């Protein structure tokens, strides 16, 4: 090809590109400002609820966790399975092997195709699975989210594992009992801008202003960045900087495990108390060797159990997802639907050496 022709070709390409860009800008177009249309106005609660309706038998209830092969979801889905067998329904658990929203969409489509009555899911992305859920809803399925919510208009009920208040109250109560109601405590958090942890820490500070906690002094908040090594070092640093420290609260599963590992190998073992949010499998050895008295987390089996009952109540017409409606969830008792269709499981479960062996997650 001659240099002349090549030059011509590049010129033409450039011109075409410029024309494309110009036409795209010139004809107004859709911008953030002028795109008035709201994304998918949802139906929160359609039809009227009949509180006296009986739970139907033979309901097809499917659990779609964030991913399969994840111990946390295996436990919660098994809780769902228990509930579904109690109400004589058909249980099914499906899910992607990697926690991605796009593969969840393909599973939601499949479940909708199979004519499920209820889809119980934990969303990998609050928006990405919305379209598929709305399609499934239009095809007649009831949608319950648990653990991780979608936008409220994409589901009927969200079963929330715990409120921030419940978590803060439990943590403060645990550490207060363990250190005898008086002394210096510190918090070992995740990252400095972690939304959940910051909300909990703020509520813990409020909780500590109550008269019964007046002798407890929160001296500092350290950040282990949810990194095992960093959390380990931060724990070490806390104990060196605050020789009078009586207790540590670590409201993150990575932090609490790292702190427990440091304490169990140090002179502070059993003297400086540690509590937080952890999983029984991570913490079992530290509870048994006396490093940790008790820690908390919601019980994922109960979470799945409640989600299954919420779905069955929806599919039977007992509730529609509107605020104030009530339904009974088997052994867990009665629940009331809150604002935006949220049902709260209740205060976190406390794990200590007496009950820890009953849990495997």
């Amino acid at each position, binding site marked *: 090809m001659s240099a002349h022709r090549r030059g011509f070709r590049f010129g033409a390409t450039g011109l075409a590109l410029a024309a494309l860009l110009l036409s795209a*800008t010139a004809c107004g177009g859709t911008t953030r400002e002028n795109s008035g249309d709201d994304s998918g106005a949802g139906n929160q609660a359609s039809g009227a609820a009949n509180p006296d309706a009986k739970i139907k038998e033979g309901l097809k209830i499917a659990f779609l966790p964030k991913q399969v*092969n994840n111990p946390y979801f295996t436990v919660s889905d098994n809780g769902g399975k228990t509930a579904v067998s109690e109400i004589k329904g058909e249980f099914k658990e499906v899910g992607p092997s990697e926690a991605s929203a796009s593969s969840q969409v393909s599973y939601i489509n499949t479940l909708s*195709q199979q004519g499920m009555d209820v889809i119980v899911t934990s969303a990998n992305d609050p928006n990405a699975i919305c379209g598929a859920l709305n399609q499934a809803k239009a095809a007649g399925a009831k949608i319950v989210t648990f653990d991780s919510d979608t936008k409220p208009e994409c589901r009927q009920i969200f079963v929330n594992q715990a409120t921030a208040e419940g978590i803060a109250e439990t943590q403060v109560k645990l550490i207060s009992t363990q250190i005898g109601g008086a002394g210096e405590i510190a918090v070992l958090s995740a990252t400095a801008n972690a939304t959940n942890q910051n909300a909990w820490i703020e509520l813990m500070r409020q909780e500590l202003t109550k008269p019964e906690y007046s002798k407890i002094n929160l001296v500092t908040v350290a950040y282990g960045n949810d990194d095992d090594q960093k959390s380990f070092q931060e724990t070490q640093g806390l104990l060196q900087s605050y020789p009078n420290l009586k207790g540590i609260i670590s409201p993150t599963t990575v932090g609490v495990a790292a702190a427990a590992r440091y304490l169990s190998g140090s002179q502070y073992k059993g003297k400086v108390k540690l509590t937080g949010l952890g999983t029984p499998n991570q913490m079992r050895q530290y509870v048994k060797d006396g490093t940790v008295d008790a820690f908390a987390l919601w019980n994922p089996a109960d979470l799945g159990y409640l989600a299954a009952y919420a779905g069955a109540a929806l599919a039977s017409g007992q509730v529609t997802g509107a605020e104030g409606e009530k339904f009974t969830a088997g052994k867990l008792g009665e629940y009331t639907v809150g604002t935006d269709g949220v049902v709260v499981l209740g205060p976190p479960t406390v794990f200590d050496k007496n009950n820890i062996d009953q849990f495997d997650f």
Partner: protein
Amino acid sequence: MAHDSLYAAPPSTGAETERAAGRLAGLRAALGSWDAAVVAALVLAVLLAGVSVQNFATGRNVQFLLLDLVPLALLALPMTLIVITGEIDLSVASTVGLCSTLMGQLWLSSGLSLELICVLVVLLGGALGAVNGLFVTGFGLPSLAVTIGTLALYRGLSFVVLGDQAVADFPASWTAAAVRNIPGTSIPVAVVPVLLLALVFGVVLHATSTGRALYAMGNNDQAATFAGVSVARTKFWLFVASGAVCGLVGIFWTLRYASARGDNATGLELTVVTAVLLGGVSIFGGRGGLLGVVAGVLLLGVLRNALQLADVDANALTIVTGALLIASVVLPNAVADVRARLHRRRQRANPVAP
């Protein structure tokens, strides 16, 4: 086959040229039969699934199946051409992710119109592909290493662009358009650009001198250069094309899931490579065609969809994909090997008359 050509001495005698020609003919036959085998497997899979899997043969399911396949089909087109030249682009899924987050960030903060953003994203995709192309052709580095590098680099950058946030407030008219069907059918509109691009790539590969040059490069870079083909320039533009298609897929992905986020399309590159190899393209370059790849993409999609509807669990699905990948690499080689051996025996049995 690459190892054939790698060890092929320059043709010195007439007999050797003849044998090479015979081998080529044998290869062409093997290629034809692989294409046919994939198409037959596809037809068989559709029929079997239609009969035995409940809810498979419905309009709604066709829509779901095709929508899931659009990104895979688009990415497989340039990948086919790249693999035929003996290179590979493993960065496609990360490029899609980066294009998606760039689209999200531009929509979030630039105030530009979505039409313009889409054009920009395709251009940016092309630029990302050009980086691959530059390293491979300009610096002569192996594409496997380069694109594994950009696989990590682009994924990392996409988390730099949006962090762990997601941009989701795209206009509903756009996100609905991404999943809309052609009126009166259950075929998504998004299939149309896929078919058009498949046509373009098909024509380039099978009906132009550039296409023939791609096969020549895959068989022997040096021979292709001696034959007057500009190997570096052609490969460079293939990587640019691959990047631009990634930009398109990034736009589609973002709109279909109404969510621009850093982990979009993670891991998709392996499915794309699987589809291309399943379609009969040799991983060593120089062999394969677009029809087989399209059939391979569809076969992969039908299998996943049908198995999922039949409640086969995710681990088994992964195993099936892996097994298909291995089978598609091993089988054509085994077939070609057997053919070559038979051919040699026949030649020995009937010596050419002096």
